């Protein structure tokens, strides 16, 4: 045992130590209280927001895409409703008995049942809808509607599919929509200050984005704005209560300048031949018809096509996906002649009285090389007007020979060659307006005088798209004053292009028009066959694009055995004269004769537009 003194010192020792521990802990507790205070009072707002963020979940509401109309208000692309059968798994305990109940009125395939069984528990846990069956028939909808009272957890919801009413007609102009990858989605949503998250879809395909054509160019307007529905959720993301809905804003409708009838005529006239038609309204540069042939069904692309069918389209030799109207490059051939003639007049190299003796060919003085016309014996003594009507090559060879090539090229660019002349076309090609610099850079070869001579008849390196040819045609029709092309009516961004000239007067334009009228109306005209296809006067210039150079008609007969070697048929036309309202360009690959093959297509399209 310990004695009294020791007990006293022990007590004091204990006292000190216990107090020491208590003080130690008191300090720790003060720190805890300080920490709690800083959480609850100083940082309250941050944590309140974090707590609110925890328990709310925003679900996006997909907007409805705008409708696309033709210039007369006919619907081209619409949102067609389809009906889906949907269950609410959270309110269902026994899926199998529910499914067998449903099967009494609506047939479910094995795949649909399996899909329902696979997703049921997750959707139930999260309190989400489960789509049982898509695309219900009217009969199924009717059957369900009468018995609706028996199925409290079952309902039918509307979903849209994006459908082109004329799936083959507008494939290259209006284009198509498709699903979207994660990155693309992020871009779209961040442009609307949103983050990718769960979405209530209005389309059965999910997120949509314009992939080609106007659907792509005007994607932003057509798309609209996502809405939001705010739910209270638990930690598992289960929906507990709907708090607020901010409706989506539907996309804007687009009124295009396309003309359904003209488009149908052009498509039917091309009749699946490889080629393109572009027709425009001269007054405002609005594109009325834009067809590339052969075509494909945009609805198939948007709403599902098997890989096999897709590959078949992709590997088709006729390349249906290729937009010949905006991206196909063709030599303008003889259609260039009016422009060359204008250049001759501009530079005073010729006048309307100027003649040459066309003996059937032109000899290049530098090296004696022979450039042949299409008529073996030539056209005799011939002036500019007749040279256009009869399409004398020799006249334009010799005229081109006299030009300074860089001046000529600059002049031609006024007519839209080598330029993008469309405001809202989908990746339009600029064609090729060659120049000595270009040739040196790409072919590492100097420019020959012979290249200039070839330019005079639109052969050689020069190439243009049917869209550019339509612009060129319009430019001639409008006497050098023309808006940029656009697919929509009253496009505010259009620019009027005015031809800057000192030497071309109204009388010259009239003469050009007369010459081009003569192409059809004159007995010697190259497109005389078109005369009886119309009730109006129409100006035109046909062309035949040589793909293989041949010396004689006999040689051509040999090479034309292979279809791909045959000449392309090409024509530009405008009318009705004398005050033209519409211009058109037609290219038919391997069609051989501009006047008689491409010509009727152009006339048919103009007819349909003029008659309207």
């Amino acid at each position, binding site marked *: 045992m310990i004695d009294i003194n020791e007990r006293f010192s*022990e007590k004091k020792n204990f006292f000190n130590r*216990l107090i020491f521990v208590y003080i130690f802990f008191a300090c720790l507790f003060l720190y805890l209280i300080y920490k709690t205070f800083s*959480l609850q009072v100083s940082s*309250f707002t941050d944590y309140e927001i974090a707590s609110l963020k925890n328990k709310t979940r925003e679900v996006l509401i997909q907007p409805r895409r705008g409708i696309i109309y033709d210039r007369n208000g006919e619907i081209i692309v619409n949102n067609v409703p389809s009906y889906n059968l949907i269950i609410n798994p959270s309110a269902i305990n026994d899926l199998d008995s529910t499914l067998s109940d449903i099967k009494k009125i609506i047939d479910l395939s094995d795949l649909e049942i399996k899909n329902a069984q696979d997703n049921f528990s997750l959707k139930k846990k999260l309190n989400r809808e489960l789509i049982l069956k898509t695309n219900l028939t009217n009969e199924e909808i009717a059957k369900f509607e009468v018995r609706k009272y028996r199925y409290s957890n079952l309902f039918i919801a509307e979903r849209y599919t994006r459908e082109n009413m004329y799936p083959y007609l507008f494939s290259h102009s209006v284009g198509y929509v498709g699903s979207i990858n994660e990155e693309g989605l992020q871009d779209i949503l961040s442009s609307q200050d949103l983050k990718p998250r769960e979405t209530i879809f209005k389309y059965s395909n999910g997120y949509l984005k314009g992939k080609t054509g106007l659907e792509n160019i005007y994607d932003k307007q057509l798309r609209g704005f996502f809405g939001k529905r705010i739910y209270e959720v638990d930690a598992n993301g289960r929906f507990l209560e709907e708090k607020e809905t901010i409706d989506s804003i539907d996309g804007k409708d687009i009124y295009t300048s396309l003309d359904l009838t003209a488009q149908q005529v052009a498509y039917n006239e091309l009749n699946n031949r490889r080629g393109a038609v572009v027709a425009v309204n001269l007054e405002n540069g609005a594109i009325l018809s834009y067809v590339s042939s052969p075509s494909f069904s945009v609805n198939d692309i948007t709403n599902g096509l098997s890989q096999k069918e897709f590959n078949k389209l992709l590997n088709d030799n006729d390349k249906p996906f290729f937009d010949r109207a905006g991206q196909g490059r063709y030599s303008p051939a003889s259609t260039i002649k009016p422009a060359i003639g204008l250049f001759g007049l501009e530079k005073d190299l010729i006048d309307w009285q100027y003649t040459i003796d066309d003996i059937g060919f032109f000899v290049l003085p530098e090296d004696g090389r022979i450039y042949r016309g299409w008529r073996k014996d030539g056209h005799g003594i011939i002036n500019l007007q007749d040279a256009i009507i009869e399409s004398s090559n020799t006249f334009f060879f010799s005229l081109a020979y006299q030009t300074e090539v860089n001046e000529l090229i600059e002049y031609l660019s006024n007519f839209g060659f080598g330029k993008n002349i469309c405001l809202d076309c989908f990746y339009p090609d600029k064609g090729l307006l060659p120049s000595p610099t270009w040739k040196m850079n790409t072919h590492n070869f100097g420019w020959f005088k012979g290249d200039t001579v070839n330019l005079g008849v639109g052969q050689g390196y020069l190439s243009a798209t049917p869209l550019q040819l339509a612009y060129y045609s319009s430019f001639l029709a409008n006497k050098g004053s023309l808006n940029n092309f656009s697919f929509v009516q009253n496009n505010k961004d259009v620019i009027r292009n005015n031809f800057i000239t000192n030497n071309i007067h109204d009388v010259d334009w009239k003469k050009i028009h007369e010459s081009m009228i003569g192409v059809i109306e004159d007995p010697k005209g190259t497109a005389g066959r078109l005369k009886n296809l119309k009730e109006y006067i129409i100006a035109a210039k046909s062309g035949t694009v040589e793909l293989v150079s041949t010396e004689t008609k006999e040689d051509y007969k040999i090479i034309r055995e292979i279809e791909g070697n045959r000449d392309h048929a090409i024509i530009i036309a405008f009318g009705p004269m004398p005050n033209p309202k519409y211009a058109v360009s037609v290219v038919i690959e391997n069609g051989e004769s501009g006047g008689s093959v491409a010509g009727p297509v152009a006339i048919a399209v103009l007819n349909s537009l003029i008659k309207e």
Partner: protein
Amino acid sequence: MKKIIDSLKSGIYFDHYLFISITILSLMGLVFLYSASDGNATTVIKQSFFVIFGLILMFIVSQPDPDFYKNNSLIFLIFSIILVLLTLLVGKEVNGAKRWLDLGFFTLQSSEIIKIALPVFLAAYLYDKTLPISLLNTLITLALIIVVANFVRIQPDLGTSLVILIAGLYVLFLAGLSWRFIGVSFGIFILSLPFIWNNFLEPFQRQRILTLLDPTADPFGSGWNITQSKIAIGSGGIQGKGYQMGSQAHLDFLPETETDFIFSVIAEEFGFIGVCILLSIFFFILLRCLYLALNARDRFCRLTIGGLSLIFLSTIFINLAMVIGIIPVVGMPLPFISKGGSSLLSFYLAFGIVISMATHKKLMQK
């Protein structure tokens, strides 16, 4: 009549300060638990039985003379060690941890019993040793503490084993462990920290410590609990969101709301004001214990009251520090509030002993 009451009073050992404050705390606990368990009446009724039984147990335990505990402390210790060993052999396994003994009517967490038995034994062992405590006695005591704590650690129950270790060390410290020894061993402890880190901690325990250092690094993994707990506490603000209105607690963002993280629920629903009220009751109990320890009749009583009250204090501290995110998540209930019979009963038991030590005066002193 008055005589009967007087004689009853003189025969009954009762500290109404502790009894009332603990009863209030227990009742508050039931109220909190009802919200924390999402209005689960069964849980609250079950807990109520433990509270009633616990209060009765506390009363009964406070009646015997401290000498009873002093003389039987070794038996208590051996009995509870057997329980712990038994748990290791035939215990019920939950989430990979064997901590519970299934007694049919009740699953006992045996480490909760030894948490009380060890300090009582140590007090009984050390109370008559001369000061300063000899190195031999120090080493014997330390060895015992480490062995017992280790039994619990391998269950594994790191939280409780830490409390046992701390409890043992408190008694040793209060009994007069030499300062020199403390200094030397503290130095050794610091130096051996890397060794402990590599050899004594399970990977998940290491992860918890790492998470604590930067909970945002992995908010949906191991940092989730701490992050959500902080959001719950912080979003409670000054006044709280209201009873049963805590979105963090009721929408399942907060884990273990009935046990480890019940404080977060209280803080979310009752705010800083609620936290302060709760903590003042804890402080009151602790200050009362301090007073009782200082006025206890002998060294054994002082050591026991001091040791047990410090266990209570440490448990509260570890729980709060854990949910606030100052220390790693170790699994520690909030005394008298968290769900769990064993923990609850062990503290009634502890305070029963404390009351016994404080109320029995030596006949000699009367």
